[in-house]
């Protein structure tokens, strides 16, 4: 069974992300309803690879993967799962869009920062100071403006969040490493994994604290890079097994 975006929340018309407060309440209710409905989650997750548009947005990245469950540009929302696959470092960043998120599994420290001056390649570590540190855990929901600078390092592999995002408000979003990232890959292997990436506009596999880069949307990526990031079927099935074990979806793999 495939669940189309139109059948999700027919009573919800266009989300107004310029009214963050009002949208926060609506998104929180939507996220809790979706997460609490195992049949719906099951249909959405297994529906992703069956829909070419959604599947093309399902990605693997340096430290986390995403499965896109629903995309409704008319009503200004896209629903996806954020799935962490290894320890994540503290990366202070903005997003290209405002969004709401519900933590399904795992705990992490959510930091919000005050930034001195513009946040760009000229920003140094001392310019970015944490001012709100929140212990996020399962059941927590927050809604954040695309200009807020924060970090949500999912330090436990297998941490899963459900995200409802709005439309992109800018072409690229700034990111600053606040701790070092090591990689077991050789320089050649890293270059191969990052083939097609635009300098300064990809998430490095290895970096020192203070390293800055831009996150871009799929339109800003080359075809080579997109194909590198396309989620593989076996990775999707591995995540399905994790979600089955968590009780989020039913087992329809066999």
């Amino acid at each position, binding site marked *: 069974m495939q669940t189309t975006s139109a059948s999700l929340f027919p009573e919800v018309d266009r989300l107004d992300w310029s009214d*963050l*407060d009002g949208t*926060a309440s609506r998104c*929180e209710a939507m996220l809790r309803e979706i997460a609490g409905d195992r049949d719906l989650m099951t249909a959405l997750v297994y529906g992703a690879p069956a829909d070419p548009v959604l599947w093309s947005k399902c990605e693997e990245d340096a430290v986390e993967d995403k499965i896109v469950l629903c995309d409704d540009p008319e009503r200004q929302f896209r629903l996806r799962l954020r799935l962490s696959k290894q320890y994540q470092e503290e990366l202070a960043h903005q997003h290209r869009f405002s969004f709401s998120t519900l933590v399904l599994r795992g705990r992490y420290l959510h930091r*919000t920062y*005050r930034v001195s001056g513009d946040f760009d390649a000229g920003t140094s570590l001392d310019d970015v*100071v*944490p*001012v*709100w*540190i*929140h*212990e996020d855990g399962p*059941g*927590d*929901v*927050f*809604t*954040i*403006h695309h*200009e*807020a600078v*924060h970090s949500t390092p999912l330090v436990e592999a297998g941490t899963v969040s459900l995200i409802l995002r709005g439309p992109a408000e800018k072409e690229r979003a700034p990111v600053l490493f606040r701790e070092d990232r090591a990689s077991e890959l050789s320089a050649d292997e890293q270059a191969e994994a990052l083939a097609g990436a635009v300098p300064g506009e990809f998430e490095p596999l290895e970096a020192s604290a203070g390293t800055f880069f831009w996150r871009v949307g799929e339109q800003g990526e080359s075809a080579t890079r997109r194909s590198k990031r396309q989620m593989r079927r076996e990775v999707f099935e591995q995540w399905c097994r994790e979600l089955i074990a968590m009780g989020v979806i039913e087992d329809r793999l066999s």
Partner: protein
Amino acid sequence: MSSLLAEIEHAQFDWDDFEETGRRTRDLIQRIAADKAVLADMVDRSLNDPALRAMAEHHELLDYLVLHNAPDRGFRLRLHCSTDVHRDRPHDHRFSFSSVILTGGYRHTWHRLDTDLYASWSEEDALGVMDLTRSEPAEKAFEVIEPMLVRDERPGNCYSLHDSVIHTTFTKPDTFSLFLRGPAVKSRSIILDAETRRVWWRFGAEQEPAERRAKVGLGDEALQSVQERFNRLVLA
């Protein structure tokens, strides 16, 4: 004395390191929150120790008891209790703090304000506007205040907040929380009303006139009411 009470008697915090002190204070208040015997003991002491009892305060949105006061060791621990008035009222603090929600909860919003009110209001001007009734719809106020992060805080939620943040804690009924504050790092803090665009200011007790001190004091009846609610909602 329990080992946790003994730990509180000796704990020391350096708020210049917000990250590390945030971590340590969140750890401490979560352990206090989980120990109802210690909580009950601290509330009893707060009501029976004349110095602590005199520090309890009543405000429009919130009453609080002081459970432990250690200015020489960098902290003061308070028990916050919502009143029957629940409003969206952005404010900052004169100090950084950590808090854990015990019962109830609140809509917690981090705001961005377009104006540096500390620059546009002199301390002298601010001293004249210590409550809403003296606040004028002023040309000195702000243009835009907007939410940057919104979340529902629920029992068990725990966080640390820096003194520079303007936030709102729009409470639900019967909200209790533990609140561990550091030393004041500025003489005043902002409160504002987003709808009427009025701004007023809070100062430390030593700068408040006697008239205001008398107004914010918690009388015997009010203290008993806080304890009764605490017993019923937190200890039960």
